[in-house]
């Protein structure tokens, strides 16, 4: 009568599986219906890039020092330097998002905090050439919220964390 035993076991295992299903039936749904409802992204989110201007003087922060170009493992940053009034500027600055791997090395090594990552993920494009961010588009990206990881803060972030102050 092994078939009876088999049938019995099979039914039992199905029932135990349905027990799990039953339990899960009453859980809250985890689905986020995307276009209407958006997930809270973390403060360190790595999405697209922005080049910053100094909020006080309105000057661009980038001095064209080539550090980010040299450290980029995917070789997506191309820039040219020019010197005006004994201060360097990036004459052209291209960041090719199509090849970027979002490793954040360029942000972390920037000595001027000029390049940051912004928390804006809706960057899909129909045309491939639109993926290359030039200096103008990088400046425009300043309107999105920044990630909290900025080059000069890396040292602080590695040190012992301080409890948040009342002002922040």
């Amino acid at each position, binding site marked *: 009568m092994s078939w009876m035993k088999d049938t019995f076991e099979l039914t039992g295992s199905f029932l135990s599986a349905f027990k799990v299903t039953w339990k899960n039936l009453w859980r809250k749904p985890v689905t986020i219906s995307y276009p209407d409802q958006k997930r809270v992204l973390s403060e360190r989110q790595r999405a697209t890039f922005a080049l910053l201007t100094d909020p006080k003087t309105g000057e661009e922060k980038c001095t064209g020092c080539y550090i980010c170009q040299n450290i980029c493992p*995917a070789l997506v940053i191309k820039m040219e330097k020019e010197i005006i009034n004994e201060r360097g500027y990036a004459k052209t600055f291209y960041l090719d998002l199509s090849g970027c791997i979002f490793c954040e090395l360029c942000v972390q090594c920037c000595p001027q905090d000029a390049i940051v990552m912004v928390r804006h993920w809706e960057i899909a494009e129909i045309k491939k050439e639109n993926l290359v961010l030039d200096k103008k588009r990088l400046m425009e990206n300043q309107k999105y919220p920044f990630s909290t990881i900025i080059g000069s803060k890396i040292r602080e972030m590695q040190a012992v964390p301080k409890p948040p102050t009342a002002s922040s």
Partner: protein
Amino acid sequence: MEVKEKIPLQSIAEIYQTFPGGELMLTTTEKFFKWAQVSSFWPLTFGLACCAIEMMATFASRFDLDRWGMIMRGSPRQSDLLIISGTVTIKMGPRIRRLYEQMPEPKWVLAMGSCAISGGIFRNSYAVVPGVDRIIPVDVFVPGCPPVPEALMDGILKLQDKIKNSKNDYRKVER
């Protein structure tokens, strides 16, 4: 042809007969077809590399693309969207081309992640195709390494917009 007066209209066929010119009605079905195509993409179950895991996550419980009528299909004959999710190598290139050709028209291609768009960090490698658009035409590029599910869904939304706004609905494929 004279229009007869005061005929009680009983069926659609009779309504047609009241039109001048005959028993046929021509209208634009393009919008209807586009609406149907847009609201149920059937992507191919086809993962290449890292991005495939994120694509799986997009189809899984948290983001759940079933909401948009998107169901994974195992065969290219049943699918109309090819999500290239990962690095395309020279060994895989001909296979991707073949899969694309096996899909019925109309079909769309979404390049997901830096590797699929341009080879990403591997673009200088001896074994990697620098960009899947060298093999097959691509409709939407979603940058990211890998893109978060929101980015992929944004790419799909942009593809829907593209289809809705396109003039000619069937692409001419270069063979």
